[in-house]
């Protein structure tokens, strides 16, 4: 059974239809990536799944439960969260407080401290800057914080929306290493990326989104070798 199943999803911004009835699924243990150009509707899809944008038609099922109309804060408690596009860390809070916010749904104080220690080992830079105001971190560091913050809630399914956006090549590699690593520790991943090459290189399966519709899907290896994908997204 799929952990996340999106069926015939339609999303509108006013009169304009941004998502035109897409369907896809993420099975437990997979890394699935949604690739596509700017404006294809990747972020809209991500946000509508979490209830940040209303869904006009279609259903979203998580772990066998219909969550189409469930408010986002409850979805987080069900074990699914998102690293949003543009990171959206809390700039005015400290790194430490950002991590505490990530653990908002967790009541066990001791566990939270352990988790923070673990995150600070995984991301050394966050450990060093624990008491710094998050807005003063560099872009790459902020991305680390956004990922660490999302990990604090122990999601079963972690969605990442363009985690490599605006980062230097070194940080891009780092980000993808972290995703691979985190996946190995038992978390299912749904990854939205413009960097198709990188995304396909770590994913099991992939969907290509084009102006609100899914134009292609298959295993990541197949798509990496697909002529159309190569031409449009891999720059080869």
């Amino acid at each position, binding site marked *: 059974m799929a952990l996340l199943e999106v069926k015939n999803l339609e999303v509108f911004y006013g009169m304009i239809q941004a998502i035109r009835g897409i369907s896809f699924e993420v099975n437990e243990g997979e890394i699935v990536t949604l690739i596509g150009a700017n404006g294809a509707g990747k972020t809209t899809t991500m*946000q509508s799944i*979490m*209830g*940040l944008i209303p869904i006009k038609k279609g259903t979203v099922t998580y772990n066998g439960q219909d969550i189409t109309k469930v*408010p*986002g*804060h409850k979805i*987080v*408690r069900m074990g699914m*969260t*998102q690293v*949003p596009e*543009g990171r*959206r*860390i*809390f*700039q*005015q*809070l400290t790194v430490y*407080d950002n991590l*505490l*916010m*990530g653990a*908002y*749904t967790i009541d066990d104080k001791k566990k939270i401290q352990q988790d923070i220690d673990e995150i600070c080992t995984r991301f050394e830079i966050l450990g060093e800057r624990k008491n710094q105001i998050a*807005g003063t971190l560099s872009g790459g560091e902020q991305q680390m914080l956004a990922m660490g*913050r*999302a990990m604090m*809630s122990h999601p079963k399914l972690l969605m990442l929306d363009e985690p490599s956006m605006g980062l230097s090549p070194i940080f891009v590699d780092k980000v993808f290493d972290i995703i691979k690593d985190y996946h190995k520790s038992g978390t299912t991943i749904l990854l939205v990326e413009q960097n198709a090459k990188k995304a396909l290189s770590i994913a099991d399966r992939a969907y290509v989104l084009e102006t609100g519709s899914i134009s292609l899907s298959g295993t990541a290896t197949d798509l990496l070798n697909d002529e159309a994908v190569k031409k449009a997204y891999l720059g080869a």
Partner: protein
Amino acid sequence: MSTFIDGLSLGAIYALIALGYTMVYGIAKMLNFAHGDIIMVGAYTILTTLELTGNPYLAIAFSIVICTISGVVIEKLAYKPLRGASPLAVLITAIGVSFFLQSIAQLIYGSKSRPITLPDFGKMSIGSQEINVNTVITLVVGGIIMAGLTLFVKKTNTGRAMQAVSEDKGAALLMGVNVNRIIMITFAIGSALAAFASLFYLMQIPSITPTLGSMPGIKAFTAAVIGGIGSIPGAMLGGVLLGLIEKICLSIPAIGPYTTAIEFSLLIIILLVKPIGILGKKIREKV
């Protein structure tokens, strides 16, 4: 010296009210112009409870409860349905709520001013100066409340969530924060603070009319803007500053009559020189 203490104590009252404006603005991004009228609701609650029971402490407790409930109910009925609507619509609704509350009070209590007798603890002397004990109580209790609020916002989960919601509602939701609940709590806290403000206000001016909340409400709003709307320390600073200026101006016969004009001029100057207020934070637009 006594002018200074009077000013600080009036400032504490303004600060308590200003906190309600600033917290609601910071979190719900709206100007709640009905906030001043919550003070009036608190004042009439104190009056009625006092008439019925004669117990001033019960009156205070009851007024806190009624104000908190009023704030939450107003948010739920008047503002919540407008979430996401244009700021102008929300603003006009707030003004409507303000008129509504004043009219209700007029229907129940009439428009004539009603006197109220609160316990008076007389005067105490500090050095050679005589100071009203009530003034000192206002100052001390007000200070304790504000310190408590600061700790609450900085150190508790709910307080941290309030800061998160004020910065980015969407991101806060992704942390599992129930944004509507946080907004409700903010209204509850703001209104409870207004209940304290109404008590302290009555200790200084012991008469009640349905429009009692307007002037302190507007002045506290001014204080919130001067300090930097959305900023909690800003509201405290702005309130204390305005209270001090008011009392100092009033103590000088030559400029006393112009006190209110001076206070609002200060607002205009601040808006010209530093529109975000003294402690206001610049919102960085993301590109």
